[in-house]
């Protein structure tokens, strides 16, 4: 079963531009110039129940707009959305009962009252029975380790503490689908790890579908098998994170630091029958060979270089997901 079905989804915004100068301002009074800007440009994708999907893209790529349409906050300009078998905007009040939402930059909790009071009110809002609440939330509270925070007002919590409470609040009605918009923004490593672990756990336990946007790609690497990548309102990649790496990862880099003086041309000559491109970092005298994914070539380069020069240090680097994605955005998909 598909938790999310998106078909030809499009959202346009009118962007007004003002003319310059005073006379321009006068003209703006009567006829305003505007452009229709598509924030999301006819995208289509499906998400299966129980999948964890990373939704990534640069600022302004249309991530938030998509999430807001999927959660029923915004009305699409054209296109079809079926989430949990409903049209989010048309049946908003019934629909939101089946989703949980965490916006990293916006609090769901009441600022002035204790966390448990917020939970209690949300429990009423979502019509959760005592039995369900106790069984489910006891576990959530324990796993997120927020027991000691429950009687504190939200305004006294640190960002990491608050985020954990936000996550718990979004799960009070145990929704089958969870939207997380930048849930780890500004959090320290330990809190991040805890949140990731927790998300994995509820995904396994309840088969919860999770759609996650983040700028921190390590989140995606830790959680998601699948990524959807957005650029200027278009989906430019939709598939497994692994094959993204295989397809766009540009081989390996081997860096050498030598004890004696080395010569770039000589190194190039040594490996001229292999796929290797040498670069020299003049400042640190680090010689780097860029090669493909062929393991034989890697070991050959190392073997020949080490035989020719005395080596202080050798490093083999694989490009990180972040670098791959930066590459894709810089060079385009083609």
């Amino acid at each position: 079963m598909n938790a999310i079905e998106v078909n030809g989804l499009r959202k346009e915004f009118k962007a007004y531009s003002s003319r310059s100068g005073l006379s321009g301002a006068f003209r703006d009074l009567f006829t305003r110039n505007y452009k229709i800007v598509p924030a999301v440009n006819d995208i289509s994708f499906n998400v299966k129940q129980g999948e964890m999907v990373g939704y990534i893209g640069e600022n302004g790529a249309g991530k938030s707009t998509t999430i807001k349409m999927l959660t029923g906050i915004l009305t699409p300009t054209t296109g079809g959305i079926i989430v949990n078998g409903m049209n989010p905007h048309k049946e908003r009040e019934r629909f939101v009962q089946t989703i949980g939402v965490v916006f990293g930059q916006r609090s769901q909790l009441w600022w002035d009252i204790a966390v448990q009071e917020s939970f209690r009110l949300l429990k009423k809002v979502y019509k959760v029975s005592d039995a369900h609440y106790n069984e489910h939330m006891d576990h959530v509270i324990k796993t997120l380790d927020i027991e000691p925070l429950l009687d504190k007002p939200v305004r006294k919590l640190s960002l990491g503490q608050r985020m954990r409470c936000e996550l718990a609040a979004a799960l009070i009605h145990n929704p089958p689908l969870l939207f997380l918009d930048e849930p780890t923004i500004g959090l320290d490593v330990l809190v991040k790890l805890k949140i990731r672990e927790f998300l994995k756990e509820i995904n396994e336990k309840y088969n919860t579908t999770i759609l996650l946007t983040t700028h921190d790609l390590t989140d995606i690497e830790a959680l998601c098998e699948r990524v959807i990548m957005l650029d200027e309102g278009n989906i430019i990649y939709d598939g497994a994170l692994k094959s993204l790496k295989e397809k766009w990862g540009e081989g390996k880099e081997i860096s050498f630091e030598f004890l004696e003086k080395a010569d770039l041309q000589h190194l190039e000559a040594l490996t001229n029958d292999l796929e290797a491109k040498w670069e020299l970092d003049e400042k640190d005298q680090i010689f780097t060979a860029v090669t493909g994914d062929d393991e034989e070539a890697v070991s050959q380069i190392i073997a020949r270089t080490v035989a020719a020069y005395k080596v202080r240090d050798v490093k083999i680097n694989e490009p990180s997901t972040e670098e791959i994605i930066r590459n894709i955005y810089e060079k385009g998909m083609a």
Partner: protein
Amino acid sequence: MFYVRMFFQYVAQYMKTRLEYRADLVVELFSDLLFQAVNLIFILVVFDHTEFLNGWSRDEIIFIYGFFLVPFALFSSFFNIWDFNERYIVKGEMDRILTRPIHSLFQVILERMELESLFGAVTGLAVMFYAGSRLNLEFNWYDPLLFVVLVLGGVLVYAGIFVMIACISFWADARTSIMPMMYNIGNYGRYPVDIYNKAIRFVLTWILPFAFVGVYPAAYFLGREEWYGYSYMTPVIGIVFFTLSVFIWNEGVKRYRGAGN
């Protein structure tokens, strides 16, 4: 039923928030009471100098003023939405509202209620009793019931107008200064409408029907039979305007653009 239950849940939550700041609460209660007392004295002093106004006696005018304060207090307590544009549209709080399974307008109202304003109703009742006793008004057994209906009608009129104004934010991005202007116009409903010229009277009756919050319903209790038609129409106008405003709100929500992160 769910909505009634949620209403009381939010009221309870509101009380708790207030009790969190105990010192504030005491100061606020005190200043509210003081404000209402000053208000009361002020009304009596101001109207002391008017004798007759277009056929209305001083006490009648005071009575209308007192009546007006009751629906106005209820309105201010529960429809405290004058900063809707800034708080919910510009800051994007509307996003959060829209992810919860309760009607969005109802949520905004619940979140923004300001129960201290209810003290104004006490002042209003005091003013009415003062003026009423001097006028030797006679009351029927069903008058208190009618009072409740007319007050609610007045609240709906006020609420309808201000919800519609709040809805402008869904269409226009810029902040508008219509809200404070409207509060001023609302004050015209406190005085007998026949002291104004015809055009203003028409506006206050049919376009921005503030007259239905003060003078029209109050005329019923003053036994001014020539106005009874308008008095009875108060709940109708209230329901029409409020229904219209909810309709516009629902349309507006569809146009909500959200705030960028």
